[in-house]
């Protein structure tokens, strides 16, 4: 069902004989690898057992690790996440799946008031090795309660890491990082990227926390983006290259901690910045990213920063949703504005 949109694979360098994996397979591989390495890791969630997860990310894990470690549970995001915190502080790293990021509201106390703060208010007496896996599920016509991008809410909570890959290779590396970090990490996936394939190293190569990836080098304008807008941004960049506009595309990969230094280095080079994300504009991650560039590279900016984002609206179903979400065309228009 979700495999049709396979055209989202980013142009990572791919050589002959390298194997490719989809993002779903890459996440699965990272988790399987870590569960073999550490027998204490437990998966919690709904539909994660023999069913393999709502979007199939856990395929085969139930068979390999059994019902104690791949714990299919009742529908109760608050308690599931709370149980995850309890396992984590007991020294059993927990990976909790929230089926749609829209439902993170139901888990928010356990995540934001408990997991994020517990080590702090107990003066370092506990560790909270907890990973929350949750996908953005947009542009499928599922409507206002199943189509949001809520990453900015999570960035706003000190004590949480927010990881948000755009491709299979980064997904594997960032999942290894999230599990080994030993702190509360929200790992945001994307339903339209699950089937997209890239070359993924078989080796154990974690992606460093808070380090962006330069998805395309360029000298004229920087497009800072992540997750579902990386591919449209690269498409826009390729199109404009034909017109002699050379864009640099940054895949931020990690919103907290944010690679402010990497961002500013690019802006100092190009002098122009467009920020693109699928979340709605007001209070979005783009505001933080843009302001970080102002604080670190103001003197280099030759044009006002532009933001590409969804409209500040609930998301409708049907064709109407296309009016709300940004596209490669919007990215191109924004770049042309900063180039004026």
């Amino acid at each position, binding site marked *: 069902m979700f495999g049709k949109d396979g055209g989202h694979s980013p142009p990572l360098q791919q050589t002959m004989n390298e194997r490719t994996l989809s993002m779903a397979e890459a996440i699965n591989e990272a988790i399987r690898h870590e569960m073999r390495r550490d027998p204490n890791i437990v998966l919690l969630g709904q539909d994660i057992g023999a069913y393999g997860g709502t979007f199939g990310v856990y395929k085969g894990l139930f068979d390999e690790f059994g019902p104690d470690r791949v714990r299919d549970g009742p529908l109760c995001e608050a308690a599931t996440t*709370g149980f995850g915190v309890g396992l*984590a502080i007991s020294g059993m790293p927990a990976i909790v799946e929230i089926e749609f990021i829209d439902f993170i509201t139901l888990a928010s106390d356990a995540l934001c008031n408990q997991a994020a703060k517990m080590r702090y208010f*107990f003066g370092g007496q506990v560790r909270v090795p907890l990973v929350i896996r949750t996908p953005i599920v947009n542009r499928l016509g599922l409507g206002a309660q199943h189509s949001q991008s809520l990453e900015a809410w999570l960035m706003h909570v000190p004590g949480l890491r927010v990881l948000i890959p755009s491709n299979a290779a980064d997904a594997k590396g960032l999942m290894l990082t999230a599990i080994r970090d030993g702190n509360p990490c929200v790992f945001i996936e994307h339903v339209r990227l699950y089937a997209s394939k890239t070359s993924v190293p078989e080796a154990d190569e974690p992606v460093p926390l808070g380090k962006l990836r330069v998805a395309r080098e360029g000298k004229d304008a920087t497009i800072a983006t992540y997750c579902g807008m990386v591919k449209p941004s690269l498409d826009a960049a390729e199109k404009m290259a034909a017109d002699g506009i050379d864009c640099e595309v940054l895949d931020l990969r990690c919103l907290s901690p944010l690679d402010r230094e990497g961002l500013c280095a690019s802006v100092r080079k190009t002098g122009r910045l467009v920020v693109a994300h699928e979340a709605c504009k007001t209070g979005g991650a783009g505001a933080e990213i843009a302001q970080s560039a102002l604080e670190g590279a103001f003197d280099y900016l030759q044009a006002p920063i532009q933001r590409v984002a969804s409209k500040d609206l609930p998301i409708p179903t049907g064709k109407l949703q296309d009016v709300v979400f940004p596209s490669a065309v919007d990215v191109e228009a924004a770049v042309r504005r900063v180039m004026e």
Partner: protein
Amino acid sequence: MKLEMLLNWYEQMWTIRLFEENAIGSYRKGLFGGSTHPCICQEAICVGAAAALESTDQVLATYRGHGHAIAKGMDVKTMMAELLCKETGCCGGRGGSMHLCDMEKDFWGTNAVVAAHIPIAGGVALANKLRKNNRVVVVFFGDGASCEGAFFETLNMATLWKVPLVFVCENNGFAISVRTEWAIPLQNIAQRADGFGLPGVTVDGQDPLKVYDAVTEAVARARRGDGPTLVECKTTRWERHSAISAGKYENEEEAMKWKRNDPIPRFETVLREQGATDGQLESCRQRAKQRNDEALEFAIQGEPPKPETVGDFVFA
């Protein structure tokens, strides 16, 4: 039960009472800000329940949890220093009155969001079950928490998975200003267990022996692998929700109801029936007072945490 052990309970009840009186006194003198939520008049539950546990069993409690911490063996010195936000406090002066913790004593902390610690306790119990380590978790909470979704979800999940967990509800009749009868359409909160497939019992929370008996049975059941029990302890709250509570009860008589239901004189009667002398009772009180005097002095002498350490302990 041996008199010596009961005298120890009595001394613990006084240790808790005097700790809370010092907490209120220190707050009123301005030695610390925020607020504090005393468990005065609820000491019998803390002591009776803790006596039913092994030292390696884990306890999670609420912001009204100083008594549970003391009963679990925490040091009143580092507790009082934490209330006064000192570096010498059990959490380095970061947590304060509502966040006390001592993992070495298996007191897994107090929590300031009502009912939020209940599923966490469930997770700790699940870890015990998966590790087959024979430890049991006791989670304390109030009548207010028994209305929260996190509580119901945990009742369901913990019973479903038969984790070694004991729910101890301290029903003190009030959630800040909301009376239990305005919030809960049941005679007893223990009846909530009926719909979730676990045993529920209601006991007199002002009698530590009754609490001990009920929690002992619940702990044994949990340790056998038969799953959780909900133990409701009927009790009475100190005159206010917290040191800064604005609202008032309908009348002075109601505010002072706790003095009529005070578990300490009641337990004294039991002890005398068992042969305790005035001298024995007095020495228990004196030891409790001395410990608390020393704790307050220790707390006052401590230094506040250094500003440059404010970012410590966010991430491991």
